[in-house]
Structures are given as C-alpha cells and as structure tokens.
C-alpha cells in the first residue's frame, strides 16, 4: 500500500507547489492525476519517487518512509531519457546491474520481447523512433519489477496513434505483474482509458480537488456512453477546479470548450 500523508512541498522561492496532499493507493490500483498547470502534479510524482523530499508530510510504501529513490518504485518520464552510450538491451538492463549476468540477460530478453523490440536489442538509442524509445524506457522501468510505477506524462510527446497504441500496451504489461500505477497526464481521455480512479488537482497551491471513480469494465471502449460520461465528469471537475462555474444544463457543451482551455 502506497500512502501519502499531508504531503507539502514549498520551493525555496516560497512557491507552495503542493499542500496537504493525502492519498492512499491500493496495490495494483491505477490512479491518474490530472489538473491545470502549476497544480503540483509533477511535484507530487517526484515526492513519491524520492527524487525530491517533501517539505512536510510523509510518503509511505508499506512500512517504509520514502526519502530517496527506492528499488520498489520505478519512474517513466515524459521523455524516454535513454542513455545514448548504451545499446537498447544495455539500457533496459541498467537498473539490474547487480543481478548475475545470466538472469540479467534472461530478464532483458523477456522484457524486450514483451514490448516488441527484440530485434532492436543491439542498436543505439539514436536509431529508434519516439514511440520505440518510450517503449524501451517502459521496459527499463519494468525490468527491476517495481511494486509502484510512476508515469509523468509518458505519452504526451507522441502522436495520437502511437499514444493510443502505447496506452493499450501499457495495460497489457501492467496485467503481467499488476504493479501500482500512478499516472500524471494532461490528457483526460488517457486518464479515463487507463485509470481506476482519477484525481483532479487544483492549482496555486496544488491540492487534491476531487476524486472520480472510473470503474468501467476493461478493455474500455473509447466510444461507449459510459466512457463518455466519466470523461465529462472529469472535464467538469477540471472546470470547477479552475473556478469556472457552469450551470448543470449546458455542462455538456461548456465542458467541451473547457477541455480545450483547461491546460
């Protein structure tokens, strides 16, 4: 169980990026975090990952307090951030250098196979397309078998087609070992496709604004009415989080406009 207790982050220039953020995430749950710019989404993810320490409050994974990067917590960034001097296979194996060579090789091969890049094992990262590179980054994060996987707008730099493809792919990979996923995203549709629960945050200072359950059956049909309903609820919550109150009867149309504006 991952739990955040009143996590607060104030930057040295006195910007309150995150205030009193409390959240419990069950093992295997997929939580999406959405919100306007400056609502502390990335700050939150960095606090969970241990890359930054909260000013106040605690992040717990089971019985451990997270103050620095932890082996059970993996992170995938917006950019692939592959190490250009390592081949694809070496990049994937970067986090398991401490394991015996045979096991390392076996795990790398299996994971590369899972992301469909076995044939790219020995090429340099410079030769990959954006989508391939991000798949390698996903493989690199999964190979140490994390219990919690953090994703910071992982598909936002990709084209719509590749993005949808990778979202399905991610769910597929998630089903293998069912780690907890925490996904920060700009893309409401992405949140509804992937998440069990969607957290809407409010900016300045960053706070939890609303939680929306997205307990739709999987695999999710992006065209279904239920899907659309959850998407509208999220968009409406986003609108409200930015102080744009809208009346109930024209919510449907208004929130579509809001969708274009909120970030």
């Amino acid at each position, binding site marked *: 169980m991952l739990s955040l207790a009143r996590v607060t982050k104030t930057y040295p220039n006195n910007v309150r990026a995150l205030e009193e953020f409390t959240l419990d995430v069950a093992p295997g749950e997929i939580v999406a975090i959405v919100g306007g710019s400056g609502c502390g989404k990335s700050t939150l993810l960095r606090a969970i990952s241990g890359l930054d320490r909260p000013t106040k409050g605690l992040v717990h994974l089971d019985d451990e307090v997270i103050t620095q*990067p*932890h082996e059970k917590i*993996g992170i995938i*960034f917006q950019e692939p*951030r592959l*190490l250009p*001097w*390592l081949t694809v296979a070496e990049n994937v194996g970067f986090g398991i250098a401490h394991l015996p060579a045979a096991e390392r090789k076996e795990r790398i091969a299996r994971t590369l196979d899972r992301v469909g890049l076995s044939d790219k094992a020995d090429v340099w*990262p410079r030769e990959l397309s954006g989508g391939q590179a991000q798949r390698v980054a996903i493989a690199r994060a999964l190979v*140490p078998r994390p219990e919690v996987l953090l994703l910071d707008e992982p598909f936002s730099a990709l084209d719509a087609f590749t993005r949808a493809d990778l979202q399905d792919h991610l769910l597929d990979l998630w089903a293998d070992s069912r780690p907890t996923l925490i996904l920060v995203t700009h893309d409401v549709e992405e949140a509804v496709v992937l998440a069990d629960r969607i957290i809407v945050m409010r900016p300045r200072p960053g706070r939890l604004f609303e939680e929306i359950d997205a307990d739709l059956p999987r695999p999710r049909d992006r065209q279904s009415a239920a899907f659309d309903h959850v998407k509208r609820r999220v968009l409406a919550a986003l609108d409200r989080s930015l102080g744009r109150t809208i009346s109930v009867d024209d919510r449907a149309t208004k929130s579509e406009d809001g969708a274009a504006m909120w970030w």
Partner: protein
Amino acid sequence: MSIFDMTFPSVQKAESAATDQRVRHSWRFNPLLGLVLPVGIAALWELAVYLGLSDGRLVPPPSVIAATLWDLAKTGELWRHTQATVLRVAAGFGLGVVAGTLLGAIAGYSALTRTIIDPTLQALRAIPSIAWVPLFILWLGIFEASKVTLIAVGVFFPVYLGVMGAILSVDRKIVEVGRAFRLSGPALVRRILLPAVLPAYVVSLRSGLGLGWMFVVAAEFMGASEGLGYLLTDGQQLGKPAQIVAAIIVFAILGKTTDWLLTAGTAPFLRWEDRFHARQEA
C-alpha cells in the same frame, strides 16, 4: 547501421569534421589535395637553390634537410633524441591527465570541492606556465623531474577544465535517471557522468596532448643533453638550420601521430554519438 559503421573507427570523421561541413554540399575532395601546397612550395624552393637563386644556407632546401635527417637516423642520434622527448611527454602527459581527470571529476561532481579548489586552480592557470621554470629548476633540479613536472602542469589545465566543464553541463535529466536507479557517488560518476562526458573528455585530452608537445620544447630548452629540443638549441648555437628544421619535422610527425592514436584509440567508445557527421554516413 552497416557492419562497417560498427567496426570502423571514425577517425577521419572527427579529424575533418570542420572541413566536411563546409564542402558537404559540393564534392568530397580527395584528401591528398592538402599535400599540393606544401609539396609545391618545397619543390619550388629546391629548384630555386638548385638554380643558384639562393644559397640555401639559412633556409636549407628539402634535400639538405632529408640528408640531415638521414645522417641523424644512421648514427642513432635521431632515435636517442626522439626517445628522450617521447618519454618525457609520455610521463608528463600521464601525470597531467591523471591529476586533471581526478580533480576535474571531483570539482565537477561536488559543488563544495569546486567552491574550495576551483578559484585557486583558476588563479594558477592564469600564470604562464613557462614562468614556473626557474622555480621548478630550483626545487627539482635541472634533470628529468623538473621537465616532466612542467609538461604535466601544461597538460593538467585543459584536462581539468574540460572534465569539470563537461560534468557541469551533463543533462540534468540523464543524471536523474541515474538517481532514480539509486546511483550516487562513485557509481553515478562511473555509470552516468563519465560516459556522458567522454566526447568532451577526448577533446580535452587532445588539447592537453598538444600542450604537452609544446611544453616539452620549453622544458628541453632549459638545459637538456638530449631530446628534440636539444637538437633545436644545438642547431641554433652551431649554425645548423637543417638540423633545426629536421627536429621541427620530427615534432610535427610525432604530434600528428600521437593525436591520431588518441582519436583512433577512443573512437570505439564513441560509436554511440548522434553526431551531425555520423548521420550522413548512416
């Protein structure tokens, strides 16, 4: 990527990167074209002396220089002097590189160390290195120690600056990947920082090596009984310009060869680079 890209060191690529960027849109000229100017001038000068237009005493013609080189080689003198010089450069370069790399890496990695040592080192760097010569002779005597130290000082600064500057400019995002995989201290330096700075490191090694060859001459001017620098002063004092030019030519050959060895030796480690020039061949 073809098998040739994988195995063939990209030596000439780095060497001629500047030239190639310029002629990229026209033809790929034959590199031998570069020989036309020096060979032409040498031939003209040889002809001028042959025709009696000049006596060639102060500026000896190529044939005389070649004869001088041959004589020096035949008696074993050339080998003895070259060996002395090469050993000095090797020792000084080695010491300078080790010290420059270690201090540069520490100063680049640790802000505290940088704040403490960098101002002092920058002040020392501002001193023209030749100014140390009298002091080194007083401290270390006129034999090898003072010469090797002078060369090491010359090599140290470009390497130190190169390593520190390169580490400071490593992409924060890449370093964060290392941190996310719980690397810190020596492991972070070894697995992230050093590979990331390798291309810049090779450049600083090359400029360090160039300075090493420069300083060996200064070192050998300050009283040596052997070495190519000795051949230079000896040629000046005894009025043998051909010997001076011969020594200069040997310097040129040695400098170029060692620089080539350095780039060729490091090229296999830099195959991953996403370079402008490499892309055109891919």
